[in-house]
């Protein structure tokens, strides 16, 4: 099972863990260093004592007659003032020639006899909870003035050192225990302080509602790790604010757009009913009402279409067809209109298109309608299809006076009409380009507009077949 640890607990624990490891390592190294220091001190001491004993033995041997009692006395004289020290001179068959125990040396001397121990190295011997370091040196028979080899043994009781190290260990343990506690506390504190900007962000973010979507989180004073997050958050707010603004504008646009036809309908009907009229006048009113109602019906179905496309609910057929054939049919459809006002539709190129033929036809037809509506009289409208790099393009361009750099950006707004006069009878609801764009986007394509001088070009770009 995965638990959701808070950042504070995670960081405190990690901090405590790191502190712990560092302290434990330090303690272990300290103890080890101290141990090896004591050992090297013992080595120096024991080596020195062995040298001394060797000299005593050899000088005694040079007199030709080994006086063991004198040797023991000299040995005791040399060792006096040392505590925890043991020295013995014995033959290889364990006959003790002389030995010395400093007061309080607790170790049984028999323990050093025999061949168990190596020569000339510092060794630790343990017995009954006592520990001591031992070193043994061998003197050749000729130098010792004896028939057999002689072994000199020096031992030093490490009890003092062991006790000191033991106490140090205990003390370090307590220290470490305290440090764990302290480092958890410090980690927690440090994390709290470190995460303070995050809490600040939380506080600000939770204060943002629909009513103050324009507020942004201040990114300037934030630590650099948090900056990308806050910048992303702000740009999300930006997008949300945009969508929200468009949405509410759209709603108010709808209400506004509905108001005009509804008010016309009410007024006409009320005026018509206000007194007796002949049949022809009633017919006239009904006809006029029908026009308004037709507009309302168009608007509602267009808006439904847009709502569906925004929610990805358009059911798209997937046909492959030629852009040229499609445009030719549309040219034929618009031919009466263009012939009447002296405009011409010209077609160039071809591209293979893939998608819902009827919807794309509607999209292209809207663009051609706009081109016819907003082009200058007698203008030529160029429809150009091309295919490159896996994309199919249809460019629709014409000279225009209605589109300027100023209103270019507003073209795709819903309910925007190129001419402000609002002659409803020939005009659509102003949703044509929105629908075109929705269709193109539903095909994973883009709709773009370019204005070059007085020539405007709409470009539909969708993935080619």
């Amino acid at each position: 099972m995965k638990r959701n640890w808070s950042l504070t607990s995670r960081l405190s624990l990690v901090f405590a863990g790191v502190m712990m490891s560092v302290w434990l390592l330090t303690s272990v190294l300290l103890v080890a260093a101290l141990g090896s220091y004591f050992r090297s001190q013992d080595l120096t001491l024991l080596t020195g004592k062995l040298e001394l004993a060797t000299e005593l033995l050899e000088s005694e041997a040079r007199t030709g007659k080994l006086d063991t009692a004198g040797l023991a006395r000299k040995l005791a004289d040399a060792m006096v003032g040392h505590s925890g020290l043991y020295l013995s001179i014995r033959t290889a068959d364990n006959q003790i020639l002389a030995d010395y125990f400093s007061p309080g040396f607790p170790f049984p001397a028999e323990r050093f006899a025999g061949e168990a121990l190596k020569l000339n190295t510092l060794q630790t011997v343990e017995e009954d909870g006592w520990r001591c370091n031992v070193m043994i040196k061998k003197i050749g028979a000729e130098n010792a003035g004896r028939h057999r080899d002689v072994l000199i043994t020096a031992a030093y009781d490490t009890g003092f050192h062991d006790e000191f190290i033991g106490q140090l260990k205990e003390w370090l343990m307590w220290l470490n225990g305290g440090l764990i506690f302290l480092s958890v506390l410090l980690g927690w504190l440090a994390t709290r302080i470190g995460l303070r900007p995050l809490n600040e962000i939380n506080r600000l973010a939770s204060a943002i509602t629909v009513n103050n979507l324009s507020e942004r989180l201040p990114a300037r004073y934030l630590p650099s790790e948090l900056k990308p997050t806050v910048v992303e958050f702000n740009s999300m707010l930006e997008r949300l604010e945009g969508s929200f603004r468009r949405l509410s504008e759209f709603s108010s646009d709808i209400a506004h757009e509905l108001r005009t036809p509804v008010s016309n309908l009410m007024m006409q009907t009320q005026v018509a009913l206000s007194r007796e009229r002949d049949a022809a006048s009633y017919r006239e009113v009904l006809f006029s009402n029908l026009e308004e109602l037709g507009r309302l019906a168009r608007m509602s179905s267009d808006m439904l279409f847009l709502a569906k496309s925004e929610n990805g609910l358009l059911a798209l057929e997937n046909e492959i067809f030629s852009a040229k054939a499609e445009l030719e049919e549309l040219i034929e459809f618009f031919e009466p209109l263009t012939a009447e006002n002296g405009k011409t539709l010209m077609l160039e190129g071809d591209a293979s298109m893939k998608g819902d033929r009827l919807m794309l036809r509607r999209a292209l037809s809207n663009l051609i309608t706009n081109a016819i509506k907003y082009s200058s009289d007698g203008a030529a409208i160029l429809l150009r299809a091309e295919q490159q790099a896996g994309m199919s393009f249809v460019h629709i361009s014409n000279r225009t006076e209605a589109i300027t750099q100023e209103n270019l950006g507003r073209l795709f707004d819903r309910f925007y009409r190129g001419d402000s006069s609002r002659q409803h009878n020939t005009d659509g609801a102003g949703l044509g380009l929105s629908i075109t764009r929705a269709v193109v986007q539903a095909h994973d394509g883009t709709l773009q507009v370019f204005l070059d001088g007085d020539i405007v070009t709409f470009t539909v770009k969708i993935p080619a077949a």
Partner: protein
Amino acid sequence: MTTLLIVEDEIKTGTYLKQGLQEAGYDVTLVNDGRQGLEHILQQRYDLIILDVMLPSLDGWDILRQMRMARHEEPVLFLTARDNVSEKIKGLDLGADDYLLKPFDFAELLARIRTQLRRNRSLASGMYEIADLVMDISRRSVSRSGTKIHLSTKEFVLLELLLQRRGEVLPRNLISSLVWNINFESDTNVIDVAVRRLRSKVDDDFSPKLIHTVRGIGYVLEIREE
């Protein structure tokens, strides 16, 4: 007389539908409830049934399913305010059925009803004659009082449609859909312009006038008393 059954729970819609269709010459029965509608269908033979999709007690789809199970094969025309119908119609795979989205043109409804009723009747006549207008489909020729009239391809198809359905008022979007295969309303008056141009060739120099505008609805080809 052609008999129609309307199952529609919205009182106003039902009443106007009934009035309109009666005035168009049909024998119309109106029922406001789904279960009642199904009873009517099972008891009696109608030539066509108009079903609202959303109905109390039994919805349009259930009625259709149950009547088809009872081997009633009358054509059904759905009326609906929701536009997810086409998928369902396809799913049912019952070619006899059609649907109209509310709001719709009344003329469109009439045209659809006629299409449904005509379904099994063949129209394969190569010649049309009305007043002094003669149209020969196979020879692609049109003349009035013996004078040959030159028409573009689409004008020819448009005239053929008007002749085929003479006396029927054809709404603009039906015309654009049948002649140009454009199934959506264009923001322009292109149909009006097209009909005007056809009219100038067919009617302007001749009498009686044959192509008439029905204001607010569409166009009709018929001989009218002057």
